[in-house]
């Protein structure tokens, strides 16, 4: 298994933009599916031991994904991802907002632009998040991360060892 997959992460504080690029050791069909199917998203979107729970998902222009990050003690933080543009297996754009459990959004949100491509069986996902605020980043960290990350890393280490011994 190829483990040296590209991961680029940069934050432009001046114009409040986050750039993320990541390669995946899988074909575009599968990677696109993993990013656009609720059942698959729920399996990886929340860093362990948090869980992602998608309540509504219509992957179409004007549609939305309404989902929660659930903490180990059952606390739910809700998010809305509204799909504003979709070019299959190439690009999709969303407006992301925090929400309450009744799907009332907390505006303003951030604008996401996700690009997908494939080369020699490796897929590349390039994400630009605009209008991200530090306050929102803080909340994101709290809702899907705090206390959970170390555990997630340990799980990953174990997985990597298992894979490399194969």
């Amino acid at each position, binding site marked *: 298994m190829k483990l040296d997959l590209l991961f680029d992460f940069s934050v432009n504080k001046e114009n409040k933009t986050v750039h993320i690029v990541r390669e995946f050791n899988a074909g575009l069909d599968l990677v696109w599916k993993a990013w656009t199917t609720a059942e698959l998203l729920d*399996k*990886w979107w929340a*860093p362990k031991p948090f869980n992602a729970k998608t309540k509504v998902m219509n992957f179409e222009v004007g549609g939305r994904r309404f989902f929660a990050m659930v903490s180990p003690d059952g606390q739910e933080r809700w998010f809305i991802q509204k799909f504003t543009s979709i070019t299959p297996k190439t690009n999709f754009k969303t407006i992301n907002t925090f929400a309450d459990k009744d799907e009332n959004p907390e505006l303003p949100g951030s604008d996401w632009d996700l690009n997908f491509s494939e080369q020699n069986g490796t897929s590349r996902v390039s994400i630009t998040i605009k209008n991200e605020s530090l306050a929102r980043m803080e909340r994101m960290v709290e809702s899907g*991360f705090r206390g959970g990350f170390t555990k997630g890393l340990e799980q990953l280490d174990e*997985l990597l060892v298992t894979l490399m011994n194969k």
Partner: protein
Amino acid sequence: MRRDIFQAIADPTRRAIIALIALQAMTPNALAEHFDTTRQAVSKHLRILTQCELVKQEHKGREIYYQLEIDKMKEIDKWIEQFRKIWEARFNQLDELLATIKKQKK
């Protein structure tokens, strides 16, 4: 209301103020000389930076000096690093999922 630090540093004048007071503590009047703007406008920027706790005031005699809170600036980087780690963890899980699905298909 809690201010967004990104908002604070998104403004070019405020970034210039941060750059100036990073070198030495300055009074609003001294700062205003560096800008083509009123002393009131500079004071307003300083107020926003103070609310974000990016600068602190120090009284020396009748003058108020503004000084940069270096630790707060570092805190911003710390938050960004944590945010990056969320993405890292998330992507590692996706790697795992993709590998599992590929194995099932074989």
